[in-house]
């Protein structure tokens, strides 16, 4: 154990020697592979068809031979028994205690089954996140999300309880009521999507409350890449006077990554997950830093509906730096950079929607909301950026637009049409925002 063991939830794993960590990953991969092979009809068929069985996984290299799964396969299996999860299920239905589903933004929702042990595992993963972000039993954490069928911050709730925090569930309250409750109870932290965190600051101002006066010390963001985009994080930190930390997770996967108090990259919880980054063109696994690829992920300890080599389509890259916190869990740089199916060629240039966000959020004169619409006129792609100028800044409109166009060209190598909308008129989101619309595909 290291001298600073108090900053770690579990120093045994978080500071484990890299070689041992890799060896642990191989052993845990074998364990979940064997479990899935023996208990899930879906996986058994998948692996038998590929001619691979548990005894074949001997080295780290062998993992690459294991077939990947994707969201389409998760959806298809749902049409089979047992209802409603299908034959990927690896435990008797009577052991399932939790139902959650994906939001369905990319198609039919995926239904996720968890046993109580899996649910405990979910909150254990979140405990790593919260502890690394400085949450302790002195915190009063407010959770402003609709406690419903989406996994959202459910596991955050249970993990915070595990840490000994006092948890205030802000479920069915509206935004105003949530702000008033946070103020009344002197909450020290809250967790939400970056979009909603910014929206809450707006609403607070509208009802005459300066967000900074509430006394929030830290905010954990998830659901969107915003908190890993420096301009967006700065905007949130300036609005709330709090430290902002990112976290990445997904319903089908679990809570696999977190920013620690150093606020540099995001650590992958490599004791609980195997993250592989695949070159989208060659299919090779990328080990070198700062090279983008799509994430293939395995959750080692989720048993009801195992997640083994799941092609998440999230584009990420390994960082080229070590974190000062001394965790040996490798970092990814910049969070989720985009979706393999969102990063698209426009006018022959590869465009990641996060690059646009980085530019827009750097303009103090612009509101938090924007929208990007890509269309095709004849053979020519067209990008329209819709923005709002903050009240009081309208007189500088021409200067703002010129600087914005210049910055966008520098950052993305593309020209944009910009449409200015009245302040407050673009859609506001409470969960995941859908700001990038590629209408060429429809």
């Amino acid at each position, binding site marked *: *154990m290291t001298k600073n063991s108090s900053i770690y939830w*579990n120093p*045994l*794993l978080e500071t*484990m020697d890299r070689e*041992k*960590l890799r*060896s*642990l990953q191989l*052993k*845990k991969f074998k364990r979940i592979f064997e479990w899935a092979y023996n208990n899930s009809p879906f996986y058994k068929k998948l692996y038998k068809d590929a001619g691979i069985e548990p005894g074949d996984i001997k080295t780290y290299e062998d993992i690459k031979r294991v077939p990947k799964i994707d969201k389409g396969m998760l959806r298809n299996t749902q049409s089979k028994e047992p209802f409603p999860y299908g034959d990927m299920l690896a435990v008797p239905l009577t052991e399932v205690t939790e139902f959650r589903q994906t939001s369905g933004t990319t198609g039919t929702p995926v239904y996720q089954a968890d*046993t*109580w*042990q899996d*649910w*405990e*595992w979910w909150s*254990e993963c979140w405990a790593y996140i919260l502890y690394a972000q400085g949450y302790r039993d002195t915190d009063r954490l407010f959770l402003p999300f609709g406690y419903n069928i989406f996994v959202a911050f459910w596991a955050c709730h249970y993990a915070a309880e595990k840490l000994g925090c006092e948890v205030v569930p802000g479920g069915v309250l509206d935004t105003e009521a949530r702000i008033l409750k946070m103020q009344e109870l002197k909450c020290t932290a809250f967790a939400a999507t970056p979009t909603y965190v910014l929206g809450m600051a707006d609403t607070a101002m509208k009802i005459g409350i300066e967000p900074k006066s509430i006394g929030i010390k830290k905010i954990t963001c998830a659901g969107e890449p915003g908190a890993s985009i420096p301009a967006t994080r700065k905007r949130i930190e300036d609005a709330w006077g709090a430290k902002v930390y990112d976290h990445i997770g997904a319903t089908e996967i679990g809570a696999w990554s977190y920013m620690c108090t150093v606020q540099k990259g995001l650590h992958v919880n490599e*004791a*609980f997950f195997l993250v592989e980054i695949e070159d989208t063109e060659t299919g090779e696994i990328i080990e070198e830093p700062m090279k983008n690829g799509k994430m293939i992920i395995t959750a080692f*300890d989720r048993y009801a509906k195992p997640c083994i080599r799941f092609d998440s389509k999230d584009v990420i890259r390994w960082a080229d730096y070590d974190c000062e916190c001394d965790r040996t869990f490798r970092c990814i740089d910049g969070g989720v950079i985009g979706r393999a199916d969102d990063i698209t060629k426009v006018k022959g240039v590869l465009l990641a929607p996060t690059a646009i966000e980085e530019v827009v959020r750097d303009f103090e004169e612009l509101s938090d909301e924007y929208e990007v619409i890509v269309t095709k006129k004849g053979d020519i792609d067209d990008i329209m950026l819709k923005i709002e100028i903050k009240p009081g800044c309208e007189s500088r409109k021409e200067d703002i637009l010129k600087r914005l166009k210049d910055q966008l060209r520098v950052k993305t190598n593309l020209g944009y049409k910009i449409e200015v909308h009245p302040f407050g008129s673009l859609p506001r989101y409470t969960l995941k925002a859908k700001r990038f619309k590629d209408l060429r595909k429809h």
Partner: protein
Amino acid sequence: MTVDDKIDKIDEKIKEIKKAVSEIERLASDIEAIKKNLVRLRASVKMLELNVSDVKMVM
């Protein structure tokens, strides 16, 4: 005590808890209140295994 010794000791205790859970289950499998609370206990024990016993695999 070295870290490895400490892990060994904790792991032994975890095994003892698991054994105790199984014994209680055997004694009281007809009592729903015990059976269902043991499910929760097992899940918590599993988290101890993930955090400590798994480390033994690479010691």
